[in-house]
């Protein structure tokens, strides 16, 4: 494989509601910042790929509108995935393997504030058997959490501990929204919103954008391995307490031996244990030091941010950082990207 390096990363502040920036302005600002971080200009970019979703943005072809922010005239080599920007980065990585371009730009953008992410996620489910029931991501996550409790793999205190740590770390991350500090002990006294999950067990949904510049020059953390794998779409077809796709993707990305930092794309505190067990890791590694996707959950962006923060961890001295991105209901589709010093 051709070595690929993370040359630059930028994210806009994840805001509860961003009324000022439209899509082109979000994309312009975040891609300009990522290119500045990489010390590169737009003319250096040989391939660009974006991740976004029209159902989130509430308008058709929002990804095409957003291209205004790139300076895409005369035409540039550009592609789009209707997925989290982490998969845009994967396509950019594949494109760099072709060997004819040396710098690629991946970005994602999304706004939770325009509509209901829960309603969109509900419509992503099987259109015959599940979507008409109106079962959204929260009740599904609660079913999964209940399965964990029943199997003796987790306790509600474990969920609360994830919330305490995520909020503490998120409040040190200037791009994440401020959240009320919460001790695990206090969290456990709060009411259920979908038993056994409490309100704080779910994500803080935000608006924002992120961008990563990849280069074949060793100017930043090296992508030691990247792979993605998918489980059955129908949650009823799977054992919800485990994730085979995460384990498979991690093995294909080179395995988790020596990993000292992980950035995990978990939307519900109950899912963190599933991801760690699938990776063969425990909480002795540094888990989501950015605060993770629980406290700054921008749709189509949160996964790409995990890769960016893992790269930042390597820049800060980590020896082997693992980023995880997820898509689909209950950790259906998972991407693993492992980063090491160049």
């Amino acid at each position, binding site marked *: 494989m051709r070595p690929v390096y993370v040359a630059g990363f930028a994210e806009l502040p994840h805001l509860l*509601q*961003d*009324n*000022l*920036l*439209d*899509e*082109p*302005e979000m*994309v*312009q*600002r975040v*891609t*300009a910042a990522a290119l500045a971080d990489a010390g590169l200009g*737009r003319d250096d970019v040989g391939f660009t790929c974006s991740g976004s979703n029209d*159902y989130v943005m*509430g*308008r058709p072809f929002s990804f095409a509108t957003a*291209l*205004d*922010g*790139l*300076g*895409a*005239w005369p035409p540039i080599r550009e592609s789009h995935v209707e997925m989290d920007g982490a998969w845009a980065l994967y396509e950019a990585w594949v494109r760099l393997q072709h060997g004819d371009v040396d710098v690629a730009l991946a970005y994602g953008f999304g706004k939770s*504030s*325009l*509509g*209901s992410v829960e*309603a*969109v996620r509900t*419509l992503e489910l099987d*259109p*015959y058997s599940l*979507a*008409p029931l109106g079962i959204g991501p929260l009740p599904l996550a609660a079913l999964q959490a209940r399965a964990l409790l029943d199997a003796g793999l987790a306790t509600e205190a474990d969920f609360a501990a994830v919330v305490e740590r995520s909020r503490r770390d998120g409040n040190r991350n200037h791009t994440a929204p401020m959240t009320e500090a919460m001790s695990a002990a206090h969290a456990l006294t709060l009411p259920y919103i979908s038993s056994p999950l409490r309100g704080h067990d779910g994500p803080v949904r935000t608006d924002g954008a992120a961008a990563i510049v990849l280069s074949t020059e060793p100017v930043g953390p090296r992508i030691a391995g990247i792979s993605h794998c998918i489980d059955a779409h129908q949650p009823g077809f799977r054992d919800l307490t485990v994730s085979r796709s995460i384990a498979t993707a991690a093995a294909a990305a080179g395995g988790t031996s020596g990993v000292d930092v992980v950035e995990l794309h978990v939307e519900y505190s109950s899912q963190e244990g599933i991801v760690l067990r699938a990776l063969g890791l425990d909480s002795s590694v540094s888990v989501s030091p950015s605060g993770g996707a629980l406290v700054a959950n921008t749709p189509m962006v949160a996964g790409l941010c995990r890769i960016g923060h893992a790269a930042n961890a390597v820049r800060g001295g980590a020896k082997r950082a693992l980023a995880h991105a997820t898509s689909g209901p209950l950790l259906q589709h998972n991407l693993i990207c492992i980063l090491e010093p160049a």
Partner: protein
Amino acid sequence: MSDDPVTRFKAPVRLDYTVTAGSVTADFLREILKGRLVGRRCPDCRCVYLPPRSACPTCGVITTEQIEVGPNGTVTTFSVIRFPFEGQVLEPPYACAHVLVDGTDTPLLHIVGNCDVDDMRMGMRVRAVWAEELKPTLASVRYFEPNGEPDVTYDSFSGHV
């Protein structure tokens, strides 16, 4: 319970949104409430966009300058609408036209009224006719109408067709 197989069922799908315009379009709509058209200028190529764009698609930079444009303009091309459909502002036949509003570089898709369709010409000079009650929408310009100025030559707008 019937043993008949289920062959069809209704599953209505609906998603609701509160779309925010963003500050650039919001400024444009606020000016429309004052009866003014404003575009945005790219600081690099100096191109003026109407409706305004937050970023220049050619240069990939934020458009920084808002400038008042119009109310006159030039028809760069047009098509005659002869069929009635719901929501029309004018009775057919009338012309749907690209109007290059004075001071801008991007033609605006709009309609032309107070003009016999047989008199429509590329290069015709027009002015904006505003609705009596202004709302935050481009439909507050009801249509453009001939302003009586002589036609301009094709060469003067050929770069904007």
